[in-house]
């Protein structure tokens, strides 16, 4: 009996100290979980690069926040939604992870944000494209950072339709991301007076695109739009060139990351216009950061999700400091209050619905004779102001954000 009383007192004491800490930093540290594709088709645009970028952010921030250490852990989702949500749950329940950064492939991110929202924890979405995370599947705990399907479609598709490329045909990755990109881009085409002749859905990781290219060709379109990414994008463009399609019609890559552009022969990809959230060689600030990144990554140049991972982590940590706690709601309120201005984000702000609105870049892939090195890939043609690039809040239909905006 005596023993039991002692135990009770002890646990009460522990509980009390625990509660006192919760007001500031829970569990005595801030733990960032980086969720990526470590060895799959998207490893080059997330993977180790995102982990390293987050670590750089933590180091640049000084390694501590509010006097407590910042810890970084990472895991591989293998691009499977169930694996992603299981890791997120384990991190939250057993390992005191406070925030997740990364989450690559929209299908995985969808599953992860559900778990995080239920646990009232923040997800910094830095390598997914679906706009659902800030529209119909929005959450007060989502911060969608780097790019999304709307900004890609607005940046790439709109100017092409306006310049007279009226008839479009899609080669689409057959999962959440591809479907979202195709439907948003189709909307942009129709709004601007163009026409969508058809689409063909190719499974993720298709080896041979030649039959899809032939179908696209026989449709008689002005533009074949590639609503896919990574190796799929590279392979479809290569095949289009091989079958002589690129000589006759325009091929538009709707989501092209720098490593993919690097993997393409300039003779094939040179001249293609696309939209990106970041380019390493844009100015002094981007170069300074990118060079530090490259020194840690065997000379590989950063892709936009890596820059986004850094930018979002710094912004999160600043918000923790400003809020004086790592409580998700308080931190998110600060994140939405403070402007996002760094080497990655220009004129950026985190909107009520979780969309980080920032300037996007319209770029052109350089031809072989314009390149000074292997890393010299894009020529920047135009800066698209954030409010033009992203979907307006009112059009998204995110209910809690609309209610917030009304107040």
């Amino acid at each position: 009996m005596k023993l039991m009383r002692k135990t009770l007192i002890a646990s009460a004491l522990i509980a009390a100290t625990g509660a006192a800490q919760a007001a500031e930093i829970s569990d005595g540290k801030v733990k960032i979980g980086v969720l990526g594709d470590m060895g799959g088709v998207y490893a080059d645009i997330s993977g180790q690069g995102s982990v390293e970028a987050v670590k750089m952010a933590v180091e640049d921030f000084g390694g501590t926040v509010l006097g407590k250490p910042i810890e970084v852990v990472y895991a591989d989702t293998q691009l499977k939604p169930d694996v992603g949500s299981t890791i997120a749950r384990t991190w939250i329940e057993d390992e005191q992870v406070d925030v997740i950064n990364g989450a690559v492939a929209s299908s995985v991110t969808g599953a992860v944000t559900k778990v995080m929202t239920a646990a009232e924890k923040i997800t910094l979405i830095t390598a997914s494209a679906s706009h659902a995370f800030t529209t119909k599947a929005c959450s007060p705990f989502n911060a969608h950072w780097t790019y999304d399907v709307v900004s890609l479609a607005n940046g790439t598709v709109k100017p092409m339709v306006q310049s007279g490329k009226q008839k479009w045909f899609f080669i689409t990755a057959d999962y959440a991301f591809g479907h979202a990109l195709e439907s948003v881009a189709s909307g942009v085409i129709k709004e601007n007076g163009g026409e969508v002749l058809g689409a063909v859905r190719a499974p993720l990781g298709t080896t041979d695109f030649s039959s899809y290219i032939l179908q696209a060709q026989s449709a008689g379109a002005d533009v074949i739009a590639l609503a896919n990414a990574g190796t799929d994008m590279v392979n479809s463009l290569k095949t289009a060139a091989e079958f002589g399609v690129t000589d006759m019609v325009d091929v538009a890559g709707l989501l092209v990351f720098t490593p993919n552009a690097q993997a393409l022969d300039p003779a094939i990809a040179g001249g293609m216009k696309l939209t990106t959230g970041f380019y390493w060689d844009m100015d002094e600030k981007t170069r300074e950061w990118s060079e530090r990144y490259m020194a840690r990554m065997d000379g590989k140049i950063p892709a936009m999700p890596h820059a986004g991972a850094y930018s979002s982590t710094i912004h999160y940590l600043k918000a923790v400091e400003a809020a004086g706690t790592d409580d998700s709601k308080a931190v998110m309120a600060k994140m939405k209050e403070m402007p996002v201005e760094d080497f990655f984000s220009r004129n950026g702000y985190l909107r009520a619905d979780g969309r980080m609105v920032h300037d996007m870049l319209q770029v052109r892939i350089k031809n072989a004779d314009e390149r000074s090195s292997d890393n010299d890939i894009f020529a920047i043609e135009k800066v698209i102001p954030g409010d033009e690039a992203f979907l307006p809040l009112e059009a998204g239909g995110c209910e809690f954000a609309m209610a917030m905006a009304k107040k």
Partner: protein
Amino acid sequence: MATIFGINLFALFGQLLVGLINGSFYALLALGLAIIFGLLKIINFSHGALYMLGAFGAYLGLNYLGIDYWWALVLVPIAVGALGILLERTLIRPIANEDHLYSLLLTFGIALILQGLFTHWFGSSGMPYAIPEELKGGTRLPFMYLPDYRAWIIVFSLSVCAVTWYIIEKTKLGAYLRAGTENPQLMQAFGINVPLIVTLTYGFGVGLAGLAGVLAAPVYSVSPEMGSNILIVVFAIVVIGGMGSIGGAILTGLAMGVVEGLTKYFYPEASTTVIFLVMVLVLLTKPAGLFGKEA
């Protein structure tokens, strides 16, 4: 344009031809697998990784050693075959008499290691490899534009398949091979070095995978994932054709390429599953496969 039942015939011919091109790859890979399984009873799960190695061999040879495509076509399969021989001698041989599952797990492990290493070294985006000068360009057929390189794939891989089939089924060397695996003790009593034959056969089968890799490098992205994507399909083809049937593997490989091509035309979403559907149907009606010998 000519149409029948609302189907654009020209487009259909195009798909058939494209299917045949993919089928040539399937045939070449399935042939290697079928030889290794048929003669050595090893379920070689590292076949896809060795195919990937062939493609990377071509890439590395071109960029670091100045070996052009044509030399790569000769040298890389030999190098990959030599690596296969090394693997067979050091890793596979010690467990040769165990259950098939052991060699399956071992080769699967080798595949994962190779794939992991190449992802670590080269990333997952893939490496560019240009089509050789001699085969750039193409022919405009009435129904499609046929790139010269794709035509070369069909001609070359079918020739390799035909020669291999002939050697194994029709020559004395092939007869030794088949007999050696049927009854090793008896063959050894006749003074034939069976372990050597086994090792060389494994090397040859693996070399075929390397050859397919070189052939694939200019048209598919040279990436660490390329092998694992194609391997399962090729296994299904070997099963459909009948485990161990050399001719069956070749014919089924071509046929499945065409079936897949047609599916891509009529219902693209099912293109990755159609081969497995065929596999299920074949297993239900002919459990030994279309060309399998034993019931």
